[in-house]
């Protein structure tokens, strides 16, 4: 078999691939629709199959043609509703389309491929619905045959195959006869039948064409069904030229449209006729402007080559659009019958499979190019489809670039500084636009990968007996081609995992009360200059405990490590090399390679993967990927005078710890340093230590023996926390040395402050802080590979050239962590240990309180709980007004009553000074201001208040805070004493229980101080109080006074049984189901609140926020629990 020339084949293959890419999902949609056949969809698939078939016939790819033909038959039946698509049929079709895909991929060997299985399977389906017709011929069967059903078909079958029809030019000059079958077959392939009358002498030879080439060209573009030549005049061809005409008549079938057909013949269009379905022969329409191109001289090779390319393109395009019309017609049995009736005479049967001749001949170019063609690899990565508008914009940019270059040259030659600056700016602008545009050419929609998943999921689900609904979102999100290609496998693995391990069987799902149909959702979206891909399933989720114990069993981690791991860390164990969770190895997933391979592959791409899973609810896997690999945004940092780049992908945040806070925020745990960051402990690595700069530091610019000295300094670091002081001292020293010989003032500017610059980086589940000397800008850098001598340096991902021409290394943060032996687990393990210790210690002492510290006079310190404070205002004494014996302040359009502690309590009077602070509280819905003195500070402390020693009106108790005896101010009490009338209204509205008695409240609190406080609130409002010291005590008391207690007010942190435990216990008993539970806490974290709500806490209140607490107690006692 010969193969058509390169370009045509390429175009064909590309188009076929496109068709095939869509065909799969369409098949699935057809399957879904079942009996409700969506004709449009079926037509679409039909057309796709048909296009592939048509092209295959054209190219001489017989096997592909045969296969598509059979598929087409089935689809035709589906379209005509002779066949109801069921999963079996779609399965076979899908398998056939798979086979087709393989054939297309390996097109040069496609004709040797064995597809008999598929053909048989397809025919079996066709036979299943149609009557049991004999299928003896191995060659293609036209759809026309297939579509006839029943008795009628059998009747005309015999006759049809041997039929020939005769037809003639409109003027009846010449009579052709051609096999009906050939014509039908040609039509079936989307070809049109033309009758051509031309003169070989004038139309071929005189135009500089050779008759042989001409014939070959004709055969390359179609099939000559019949031809006739005036033999008498042939002998005159070799004559001297004025030999007169050689009339040549042909019946020609081609996929060329009437508009294009004359490009082939280049004769008077009046001599070309098209034979329509009804056998009428009509002249073709006068040609389009294309004609001018076609009539150009053909001598020059390039000219003809361009033309033939253009032609071949238009063949493909045209036959796609024409085929469906002609196809519909030819498939219509009624039409076919009319044809039969239109005077068809019976003649001898011609052998089928005539189309094969199409490609049996030489190509349209007439040059033997097969050798080259054979060697050219046909792969998906050799060519790329780019939108023309994009190419246009690239062209524009290139033009602009040239213009700017001219400007620049001109500016330089004339020495015009300003003009050169302008040109420079322009070039800057154009370069970035150019970069963007070129990037765009490489961008492909992530849908290219996503689209294969419906099939993957369907097949897998069928195999595993699961019912799964796959949702794809963000198909049009675009990414670099290389990344798209590289994520295909990892994503497939993840999706397979979700289907295989994630989603449960329908029975299991039903048991656990879920929808039988499992959900798998793939979602791609842009976020922060990265592409995020999320794979979510609502399956059984990952069991952290099981994972952990499996990891321990495999010796990947130790038992101790698991004890301090968070659920999320346990789930992320799945990424450890050598970890496979499948209970049994199926051929679906869990094939020995596991998630660690996925992770490694993604790491290579600069991607980050993260798992979140809730047992029984599902798993979400998130992948963050860079848009492209060639140019990446990086944060530039400096250490020891060298710049390094950290990819922004890995960058979480930049942290600068002022010198004054270094001591408090940096802690040492064993040999590890950690920093407190929003309640978490973050392991710290010093970049200089990790890459061992001290040791290898050979300053090329100086001749001094620095390395020794530095090593000594570095060795000194093993003391306690002065470490960081040492470091700064050492750096200062170094910078002095450097600056003396090689000043780099700017880079060193932060050192004097000895603050700590930390780059918080993350790779997957691991997060750590990298201590660097200096932070620079973030830049877009071009990644350049490092030489082979440096391939052992794992700490670098490459190098880049900075704006000043110097080279900077790109850090590989994952490998840096590995080099520092900060494995994901060890790092977080230590951190977890520390944070646990810290929280244990805190819990052991007491709850932590956020307190606002202020003063009244110079030596008396007061605190109020921070959460009671609304605002703090700074005022001048002159702003204060004395009205009606009260101090007030105009405040936000109203009047704010002011008071001071000394009005009620026996404390020193407020200091006479011009400036005053007013702490604004809200009491009984009104704002009041407490006059105070600075300095104010907020502290998070855990102290036990002494409520007896200094207790008095307006003072709740005392404690030692920051070395001072500090009084806790009772704002509520003070306001009540000063403004008793504010509370009258509330006092009248006492809540009574149904017996007319005051309700009883169970107050559970381990701290005497707080318990007494709450008790006094309750009693103040006229409730009876039952006290309990902890959860267990409370439970016993509740059992004892079950009848009386109508509300529980409990602390969370308590020994023996905590508030959560107590709540859970109460809620587990049906008889207490209507008992309201109010929880009191010092620091209401969202997590705690959520947890509380889960176990059954009705409301959360902050300790000492009497107002809200009492309001809610009142509400609950009045209305009960609102369930």
């Amino acid at each position: 078999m010969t193969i058509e020339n390169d370009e045509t084949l390429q175009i064909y293959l590309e188009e076929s691939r496109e068709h095939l890419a869509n065909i799969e999902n369409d098949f699935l949609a057809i399957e879904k629709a079942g009996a409700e056949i969506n004709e449009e969809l079926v037509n679409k698939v039909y057309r796709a199959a048909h296009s592939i078939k048509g092209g295959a016939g054209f190219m001489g790819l017989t096997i592909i043609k045969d296969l598509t033909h059979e598929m087409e038959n089935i689809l035709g039946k589906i379209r005509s509703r002779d066949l109801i698509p069921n999963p079996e049929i779609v399965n076979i079709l899908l398998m056939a389309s798979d086979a087709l895909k393989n054939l297309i991929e390996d097109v040069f060997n496609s004709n040797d491929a064995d597809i008999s299985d598929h053909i048989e399977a397809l025919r079996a389906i066709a036979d299943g619905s149609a009557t049991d017709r004999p299928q003896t011929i191995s060659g293609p069967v036209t759809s026309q045959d297939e579509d006839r059903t029943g008795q009628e078909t059998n009747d005309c079958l015999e006759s049809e195959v041997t039929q020939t029809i005769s037809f003639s030019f409109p003027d009846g000059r010449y009579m052709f006869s051609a096999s009906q079958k050939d014509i039908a077959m040609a039509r079936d392939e989307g070809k049109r039948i033309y009758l051509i009358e031309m003169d070989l002498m004038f139309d071929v030879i005189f135009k500089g064409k050779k008759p042989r080439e001409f014939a070959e060209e004709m055969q390359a573009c179609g099939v000559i069904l019949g031809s006739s030549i005036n033999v008498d005049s042939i002998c005159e061809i070799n004559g001297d030229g004025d030999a007169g005409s050689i009339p040549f008549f042909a019946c020609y079938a081609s996929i060329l449209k009437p508009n294009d057909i004359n490009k082939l013949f280049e004769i008077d269009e009046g001599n070309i006729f098209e034979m329509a379905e009804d056998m009428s022969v009509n002249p073709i329409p006068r040609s389009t402007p294309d004609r001018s191109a076609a009539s150009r001289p053909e001598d020059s090779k390039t000219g003809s080559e361009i033309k033939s390319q253009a032609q071949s393109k238009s063949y493909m395009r045209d036959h796609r659009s024409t085929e469906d019309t002609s196809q519909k017609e030819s498939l219509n049995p009624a039409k076919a019958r009319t044809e039969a009736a239109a005077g068809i005479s019976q003649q001898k049967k011609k052998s089928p499979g005539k189309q094969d001749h199409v490609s049996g001949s030489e190509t349209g170019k007439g040059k033997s190019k097969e050798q080259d063609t054979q060697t050219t690899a046909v792969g998906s990565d050799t060519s790329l489809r780019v939108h023309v508008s994009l190419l246009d914009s690239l062209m524009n940019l290139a033009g602009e670039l040239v213009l700017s270059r001219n400007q620049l040259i001109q500016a330089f030659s004339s020495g015009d500084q300003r003009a050169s600056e302008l040109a420079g700016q322009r070039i800057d602008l154009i370069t970035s636009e150019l970069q963007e545009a070129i990037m765009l050419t490489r961008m492909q929609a992530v849908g290219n990968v996503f689209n294969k998943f419906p099939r993957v999921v369907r097949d897998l689900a069928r195999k595993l007996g699961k019912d799964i609904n796959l949702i794809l979102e963000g198909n049009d999100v675009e990414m670099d081609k290389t990344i798209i290609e590289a994520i295909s496998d990892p994503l497939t693995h993840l999706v397979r995992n979700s289907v295989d391990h994630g989603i449960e069987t329908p029975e299991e799902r039903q048991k656990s009360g879920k929808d039988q149909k499992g959900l798998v959702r793939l979602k791609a979206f842009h976020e922060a200059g990265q592409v995020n891909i999320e794979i979510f399933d609502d399956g059984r989720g990952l069991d952290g405990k099981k994972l952990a114990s499996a990891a321990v069993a495999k010796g990947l981690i130790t038992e101790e490590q698991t004890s301090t791991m968070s659920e999320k860390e346990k789930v992320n164990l799945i990424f450890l090399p050598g970890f496979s969770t499948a209970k049994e190895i199926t051929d679906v997933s869990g094939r020995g390679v596991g998630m660690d391979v996925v992770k490694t592959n993604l790491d290579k791409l600069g991607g980050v993967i993260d798992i979140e899973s809730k047992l029984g609810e599902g798993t979400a896997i998130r992948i963050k990927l860079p848009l492209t690999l060639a140019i990446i945004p990086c944060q530039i940092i400096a250490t020891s005078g060298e710049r390094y780049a950290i990819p922004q992908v890995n960058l979480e945040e930049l942290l600068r710890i002022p010198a004054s806070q270094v001591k408090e925020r940096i802690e040492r745990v064993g040999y590890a340093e950690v920093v407190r960051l929003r309640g978490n402990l973050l392991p710290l690595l010093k970049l200089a230590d990790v890459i061992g700069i001290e040791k290898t530091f050979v300053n090329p610019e100086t001749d001094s023996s620095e390395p020794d000295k530095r090593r000594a300094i570095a060795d000194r670091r093993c003391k306690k926390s002065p470490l960081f002081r040492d470091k700064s001292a050492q750096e200062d020293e170094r910078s002095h040395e450097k600056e003396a010989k090689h000043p780099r003032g700017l880079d060193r500017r932060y050192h004097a402050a000895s603050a700590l610059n930390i780059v918080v980086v993350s790779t997957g589940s691991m997060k750590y802080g990298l201590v660097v000397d200096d932070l620079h800008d973030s830049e877009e850098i071009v990644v350049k590979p490092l030489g082979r001598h440096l391939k052992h340096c794992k700490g670098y991902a490459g190098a880049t050239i900075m704006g000043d021409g110097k080279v900077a290394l790109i850090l590989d943060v994952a490998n840096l962590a590995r080099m520092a032996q900060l494995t994901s687990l060890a790092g977080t393990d230590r951190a977890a240990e520390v944070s646990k210790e810290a929280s244990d210690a805190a819990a052991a002492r007491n709850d932590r309180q956020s307190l606002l510290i202020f003063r009244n006079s110079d030596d008396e310190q007061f605190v109020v709980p921070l959460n009671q404070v609304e605002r703090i205002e700074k005022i001048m004494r002159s702003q204060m007004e004395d009205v009606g014996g009260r101090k007030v302040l105009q405040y936000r359009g109203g009047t704010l009553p002011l008071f001071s502690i000394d009005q009620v309590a026996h404390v020193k009077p407020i200091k006479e000074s011009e400036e005053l602070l007013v702490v604004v509280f809200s009491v009984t819905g009104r704002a009041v201001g407490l006059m105070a003195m600075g300095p104010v500070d907020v502290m998070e402390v855990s102290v036990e208040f002494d409520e007896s020693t200094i207790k008095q009106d307006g003072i709740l108790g005392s404690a030692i805070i920051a070395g001072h005896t500090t009084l806790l101010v009772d704002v509520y009490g003070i306001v009540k004493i000063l403004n008793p009338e504010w509370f009258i209204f509330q006092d009248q509205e006492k809540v009574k229980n149904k017996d007319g008695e005051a309700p009883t409240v169970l107050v559970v609190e381990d701290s005497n101080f707080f318990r007494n406080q709450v008790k006094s609130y309750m009693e103040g409002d006229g409730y009876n109080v039952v006290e309990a010291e902890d959860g267990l005590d409370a439970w016993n008391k509740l059992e004892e006074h079950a009848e009386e207690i109508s509300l529980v007010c409990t602390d969370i942190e308590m020994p023996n049984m905590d508030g959560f435990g107590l709540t859970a216990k109460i809620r587990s008993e049906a008889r207490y189901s209507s008992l309201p539970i109010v929880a009191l806490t010092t620091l209401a974290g969202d997590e705690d609140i959520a947890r509380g709500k889960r176990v059954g806490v009705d409301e959360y209140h902050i300790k000492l926020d009497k107002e809200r607490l009492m309001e809610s107690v009142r509400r609950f006692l009045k209305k009960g629990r609102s369930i």
Partner: protein
Amino acid sequence: MKDISKTEAKHATLELATFYVGEALCGMNILKIQEINKLMEMTRVPQAPAYVMGILNLRGQIVTIVDLAKKLGLPSTELTEKSRNIIVNSKGEHIGLMTSRISDVVQAGSDKIEAPPANIGGVQGKYFTGVYKTENSLVGILDVESVLMDE
């Protein structure tokens, strides 16, 4: 060099670029050399092998600079005004060889090239393919590929 007669130069001569590694005069086939420059703006690569002095930007390409002296087991090269980088193309990548200073290009007749003395085995020995005698000195001929063989 002038001393070499034309007849000798005609047959089987090897053009050697000679240079100093520390105080030792070495030579290499001039055809191996892409360029000689005095770019010294190197970036250190911590954790690199000791013989790698750093990397530098050669017209947009990252070039690894190898300290020849260190590679040959001598004390590391000190950078001076006379230091030069010899850029060679080895296995598809550019590598710079740091030398203390460069010297002449000599036409070495094959009859004047001798096998390296047997007593310079060890680290240095394997890098020399021969010794070329001039009137007043000896030039050790380096085999660049084996010098640049990664370890």
